[in-house]
């Protein structure tokens, strides 16, 4: 066994040392594989970043209530009486001021995207106790809006991506003028891509009367969710649907994440096919150029299996070199790259950063190795099948 490994090792070292003799083809194959890996990592880092931006793992103790049948806040609607019933439901955390719930509404406004200079839709959310309910919202610049005044705070991502959201700047929305008084971070999901204000000010500005679109409730414990949900869904006065915030966010972003991942895998697959032919070509010419040397090794008594494995290892080494370069390039070019895109389910902009995660890099390396293995397999088999006596005549 150790003898067999020594055989394979010696042959592989020998094969790899012959790579410089066919630099051109080897570099072409490695570059092809590097390209596949870079594109794969690049596109999927968008999906990863988006997933992170949507904070799909939302806090387990925040529940969301929508009108039953609504599949997003956009299409939902709740009246004042329903909001009151929801706040009084069992399982809701309370403070000295009362239950920790936030009735919210949601309008879409137009802002200019910095990077393109084009108009985009940005959500403006009216909240009652939005900051208190979510618990993780931090004002990172300026201050929070004051209830009853035309003041807004902008999410960190929104402030970065869209023009006119600096603290102190004013914006014309609806029939009135609003002042940006602060920048906030946190809030879960795509909150950082939103602008928040007092629901009581937003309602009249957009002629929403007494209506809201959703209620966010902080629960006493994550386990209280079932009790909260059951009491609301069995209440004949309410037609509502109850979800955990994380579930809702996952639902909202799933289509886009799947779409982007799908594109990434599709493009990478197409390119991988190209790179596979490049690798096949390289390895076929490698074994053809060395036909007599391989035949000599076999005449000396080296086995077919060792020769097949060593040719495949050579191909994998080449693929790993290319894949490593591609992954490094993608990491360098894409990781943390900030962008904003449309979430088609809410028709609003979500700001996010490309995320080149370790699992993504690992997947990319697996692709590279796969290309190496398949690119090496058939040439290796050909090398080992060629009759020795014939190959020695070449």
């Amino acid at each position, binding site marked *: 066994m150790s*003898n067999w490994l*020594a*055989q394979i090792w*010696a042959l592989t070292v*020998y094969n790899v*040392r*012959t790579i410089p*003799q066919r630099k051109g083809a080897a570099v072409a194959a490695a570059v092809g594989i590097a390209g596949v890996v870079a594109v794969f990592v690049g596109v999927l880092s968008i999906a990863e970043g988006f997933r992170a931006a949507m904070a799909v793992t939302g806090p387990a103790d925040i529940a969301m209530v929508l009108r039953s049948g609504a599949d997003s806040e956009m299409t939902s609607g709740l009246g004042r009486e329903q909001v009151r019933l929801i706040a009084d439901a069992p399982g809701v955390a309370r403070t000295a001021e009362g239950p920790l719930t936030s009735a919210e509404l949601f309008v879409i406004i137009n802002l200019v995207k910095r990077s393109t200079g084009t108009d985009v839709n940005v959500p403006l959310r009216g909240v009652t106790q939005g900051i208190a309910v979510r618990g993780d919202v931090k004002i990172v610049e300026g201050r929070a809006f004051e209830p009853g005044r035309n003041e807004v705070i902008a999410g960190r991502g929104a402030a970065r991506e869209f023009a006119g959201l600096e603290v102190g700047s004013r914006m014309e929305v609806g029939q009135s003028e609003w002042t940006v008084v602060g920048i906030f971070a946190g809030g879960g999901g795509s909150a950082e891509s939103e602008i928040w204000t007092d629901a009581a000010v937003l309602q009249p500005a957009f002629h929403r009367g007494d209506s809201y679109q959703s209620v966010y409730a902080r629960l006493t414990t994550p386990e209280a969710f079932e009790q909260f949900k059951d009491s609301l869904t069995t209440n004949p006065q309410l037609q509502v649907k109850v979800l955990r915030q994380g579930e809702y966010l996952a639902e909202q972003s799933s289509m886009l994440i799947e779409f982007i991942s799908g594109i990434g895998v599709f493009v990478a697959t197409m390119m991988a096919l190209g790179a596979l032919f490049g690798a096949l070509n390289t390895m076929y010419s490698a074994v053809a150029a060395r036909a*007599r*040397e391989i035949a*000599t*090794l*076999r*005449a*000396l*008594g*080296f*086995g*077919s299996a060792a020769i097949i494995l060593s040719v495949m290892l050579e191909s994998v080494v080449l693929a790993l070199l290319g894949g490593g370069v591609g992954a490094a390039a993608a990491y360098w070019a894409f990781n943390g790259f900030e962008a904003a895109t449309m979430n088609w389910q809410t028709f609003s902009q979500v700001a996010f950063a490309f995320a080149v995660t370790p699992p993504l890099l690992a997947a990319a390396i697996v692709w590279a190795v796969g290309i190496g293995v398949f690119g090496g397999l058939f040439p290796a088999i050909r090398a080992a099948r060629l*009759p*020795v*006596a014939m190959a*020695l*005549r070449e």
Partner: protein
Amino acid sequence: MSTGNGVLVRVEDVHRTFWRGAEQIDVLSNLHLEVPRGEFLALMGPSGSGKTTLLNLIGGLDRPTSGSVEVAGERIDRMSNRRLAAWRARHVGFIFQFYNLLPVLTAERNVELPLLLTHLSKSERRRHVETALHVVGLTDRSGHFPRTLSGGEQQRTGIARAIVTDPTLLLCDEPTGDLDRKSGDEILGLLQALNREHGKTIIMVTHDPHASARATRTVYLDKGRLSAEKPE
């Protein structure tokens, strides 16, 4: 053992047919050959007469279309490919006209190659390599790459590689065919010494009468048949 005491190689009633498209080429037909242990046999014949084909059959690189090839009592024509590879590693040393050294390996690494198929430790391997290089007189060139060696030195490396495992049989296919007279003579002297002093059985293909003069016996191959007399 079916092979007689003194006989190392026994080729019996061997036919070897090749097909080139629909055309059948009977390279060897009804061929018999016995090579006693310790012989230095020269195999001569015109180009294309089947010398290399016969050598390949004896070395287990090819199989006869019919007939039997027995070496040291074993029917090598019936072995599986896998066993045959192991058999070659243990029993045969090949010496080629164009040396067939691996260009990316130094002389000593080239010589070490067949030892990777044995269970020898690294230090034992080094010792064997040193001995083989010493026998061929190439100790001071051991770290050189083939392209920096002369033809004669490359062939000596090839011989060191062939003898490093101490094989039963040395098979040489025109070992001096690519060398000038002086280097060729040195190689022939070396083979002769291996035969006389180390008792190696050698079968050497050549068409150089000068080379065959060093052998203990010469046979001629022509039109698929062997004879002890040079054909007209």
